[in-house]
């Protein structure tokens, strides 16, 4: 079987239907059995004059990262597409509209700039669509038709998806759009019969599990639903808004509520109120909103209140780069907030983990009576992967509330000091267990107590409890050679996929390298991380932030040389960049 590794980009101006076309492509390819990972980028303004780019990587094996080399570009707007040239493979294929709606400015045609080894396929996307459907709007679909014909993709998958997508706009629109697609298809078959490049299509493996094409945000929503989320409180913010909107369409049917509140302070406040009664609650936000939650997060630490908070990171600081990706909230998630405020911070590295870690955040929050921060990032939230539909056992998300013994009625101590630091928690409504929770320092009963011994005891308890949670957090996973490594890469979040991809390539090249995936960021598995570092001559920590935040957090564990690879660009760290660094380090080492 041929190994397929195909990256397709569609580039246009907002309004060109770029994102829609990319979505359809992903769905159709997924349907056809390809594995997919795709990520769009679009402007922060609604109708700015911004560029939209979708990038999809397809193959037979599971796709774990995007690469910055594109094999095929569909240009819906030549001027915008010119910016993509540096990212096209030397022998890339370019499909473009040879009769676009507005004439291409002098010297701005993509055809005029393509490098010699590239293959160009012009087609009158607009005219094809207009002729087929009566509307030029379908030119993005005509372009998909050209693509499907050129690569001999399973056209029924496209037709079905197009029909489905436009059903809500009426039978006529849907049929017209399918015709636009077909027009593109016929055009390419007729015009370039001898330049077609049929792609092998994966055989449908028997008994394959159902696959879903999910974004990280959908997986987060599904994970929360799987965990029996009762109340979602949120405030719109990119890239977390789709989580709220996804749940708004589904949670009410399950008897839950989605409430858009007046700000993020209110959102986290309501989450704490709901969880106080035992009803699982969650909020999702991004940097600016997360910043506003700081005070109540510290209160939750002190009052030992459960909460699940998704921080969908975007480019920072402040309002920053609302539609770009970054991993720069790590230290704020771990250390943000005055006082000694240990809490749990976990970070998924792919869509499947978005599901699992979100679901498991609920019992963790309940059991350890603490805020659990799930750190994702734009690249994870908005990418789509087609994955086996994840599921989680009822056990894994079962109610983790430790209730007090009934005979404690009347003498219940909410903050009883225990060896684990975990105190039984009674819910309002339980007769005889009335108590107060508070962010003031308190004694075991919950009554304010500022005496020195008490503060020490309660600080110890809170710390002990969170450190104890390590037992329930996934230990770091090692990939690659088990022995001594020339370079050991330590990665988290969306960068991990790229790191693993780079390490796999390096190993294919015979290099002695490995990779460590960390999903538990606080508390973290010191021993395991140190063990991996100890067998690495050089430790490489690639991160999508400026200051090397993971390195700040765990760097002290490294007894060897640590090298940071940081990037503040708002775009993912690609495997090739990490691979380049590995080569450089091993080269240095040898010289």
């Amino acid at each position, binding site marked *: 079987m041929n190994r397929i590794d195909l990256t397709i980009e569609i580039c246009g101006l907002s309004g060109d239907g770029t994102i829609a076309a990319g979505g359809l492509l992903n769905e159709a390819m997924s349907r056809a059995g390809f594995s997919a990972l795709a990520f769009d980028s679009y402007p922060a303004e609604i109708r700015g004059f911004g560029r939209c780019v979708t990038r999809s990587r397809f193959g037979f094996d599971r796709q774990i990262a995007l690469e910055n080399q594109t094999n095929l570009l569909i240009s819906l707007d030549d001027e915008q597409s010119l910016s993509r040239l540096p990212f096209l493979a030397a022998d890339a294929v370019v499909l473009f509209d040879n009769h676009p709606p507005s004439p291409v400015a002098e010297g701005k045609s993509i055809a005029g700039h393509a490098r010699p080894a590239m293959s160009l396929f012009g087609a009158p996307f607009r005219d094809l669509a207009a002729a087929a459907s009566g509307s030029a709007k379908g030119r993005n679909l005509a372009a998909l038709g050209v693509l499907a014909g050129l690569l001999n993709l399973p056209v029924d998958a496209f037709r079905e998806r197009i029909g489905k997508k436009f059903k809500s706009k009426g039978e006529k629109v849907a049929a017209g759009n399918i015709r636009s697609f077909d027009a593109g298809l016929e055009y390419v078959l007729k015009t370039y019969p001898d330049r077609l490049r049929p792609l092998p299509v994966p055989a449908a493996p028997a008994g394959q599990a159902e696959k879903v094409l999910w974004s990280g945000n959908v997986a987060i929503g599904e994970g929360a639903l799987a965990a029996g989320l*009762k*109340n979602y*409180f949120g405030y719109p913010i990119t890239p977390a808004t789709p989580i709220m909107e996804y749940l708004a369409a589904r949670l009410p049917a399950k008897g839950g*509520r989605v*409430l858009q*509140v*007046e*700000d993020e*302070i*209110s*959102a*986290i*406040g*309501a*989450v*704490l*109120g*709901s*969880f*106080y*009664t*035992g*009803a699982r*609650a969650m909020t999702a936000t991004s940097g600016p909103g997360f910043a506003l939650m700081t*005070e*109540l997060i510290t*209160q939750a630490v002190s*009052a030992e209140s459960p909460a699940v908070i998704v921080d969908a990171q975007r480019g920072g600081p402040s309002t920053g780069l609302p539609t770009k990706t970054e991993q720069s909230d790590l230290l704020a998630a771990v250390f943000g907030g005055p006082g000694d405020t240990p809490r749990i911070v976990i970070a998924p590295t792919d869509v499947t983990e978005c599901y699992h870690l979100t679901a498991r955040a609920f019992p963790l929050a309940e059991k350890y009576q603490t805020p659990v921060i799930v750190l994702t990032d734009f690249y994870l939230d908005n990418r789509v992967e087609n994955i086996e539909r994840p599921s989680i056992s009822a056990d894994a998300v079962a109610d983790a509330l430790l209730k007090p013994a009934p005979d404690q009625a009347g003498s219940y101590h909410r903050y009883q000091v225990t060896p684990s630091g975990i105190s039984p928690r009674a*819910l*309002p*409504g*339980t*007769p*005889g*267990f*009335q*108590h*107060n*929770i*508070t*962010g*003031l320092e308190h004694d075991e009963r919950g*009554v*304010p107590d500022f005496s020195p011994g008490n503060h020490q005891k309660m600080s110890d308890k809170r710390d002990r409890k969170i450190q104890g949670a390590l037992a329930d957090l996934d230990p770091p996973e090692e990939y690659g050679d088990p022995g001594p490594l020339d370079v050991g890469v330590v990665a988290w979040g969306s960068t991990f996929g790229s790191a693993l991809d780079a390490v796999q390539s390096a190993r294919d090249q015979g290099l002695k390298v490995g990779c460590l995936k960390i999903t538990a960021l606080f508390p973290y598995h010191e021993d395991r991380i140190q063990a991996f570092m100890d067998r690495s001559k050089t430790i490489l920590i690639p991160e999508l932030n400026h200051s090397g935040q993971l390195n700040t957090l765990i760097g002290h564990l490294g007894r060897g040389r640590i090298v940071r690879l940081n990037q503040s660009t708002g775009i993912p760290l690609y495997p090739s960049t990490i691979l380049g660094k590995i080569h450089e380090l091993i080269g240095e080492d040898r010289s």
Partner: protein
Amino acid sequence: MKTPARRLAEKVQSIQESNVFNIRSGELPTWCPGCGYFGIHFGINNALQRLGLDHHQVVIVSGIGCAGRYPFFSNTYGHHTVHGRSLPVAQGVKLGNPNLTVLAVGGDGDGLGIGGGHFPHAARRNFDINYVLFDNSIYGLTKGQPSPSTPKGFKTKASPEGTVDQPLNATLLALSYGATFVARLFAGDPEGITTALMAGIRHKGFSFFHVYTSCVTFDKQFKTWNNLTNRVRPLPAGYDPADRRRAIERVLVDDDSLGIFYQEPPKGKE
């Protein structure tokens, strides 16, 4: 001659000793002797008792301030959150378990200052929670700075030349925000508090209780027992609380009447 504060303190003490209500927790209130909060405490407790609510079915959420300490002195469930956030938490509690009776309590600094952004939304969302604002027009716990409801000309260490800002009128705000139950009350009239609380807790929707009270320790100038006692009087007999527009018109010209200013006919959405 006994000061009104003294009289109230004595009254409260006699009530405490009578043990008529057992909803108080074992904790002794940490308020200053003579503080108006004792009267509010009494008024609220009495309402809960008379409504026959089980203590364990009641959650009192509070922010920070002398008023914010309230839950510790009550034998219900209590959630003492941070400064200004009692309403968000209270709404979460209500959605978490709609069977609970939920009270949010706090001071004027807590509710009109730092927490003032949540008040409009709690009101217009109209969940069935009960918000009792302990309005002494001062920041008590931090030792006497002006608050958003402080009258002009108040001299404190933080305002040595006297305050100059227009004070906020919480009753007017609640009405402007669309609250479906609005009462104005006085700490020196615990019975009035009890009556209004009973009606408000029964009201299915957001109920707001604006309680005039006195910080005997830090305000010797405006909201003293004397000044308040001399000012307040009941709403005129026959006042009809069913008309929101009328209520607003009244509150624009009348700072002194006590009672239920507005109650929407029961059809609250939550």
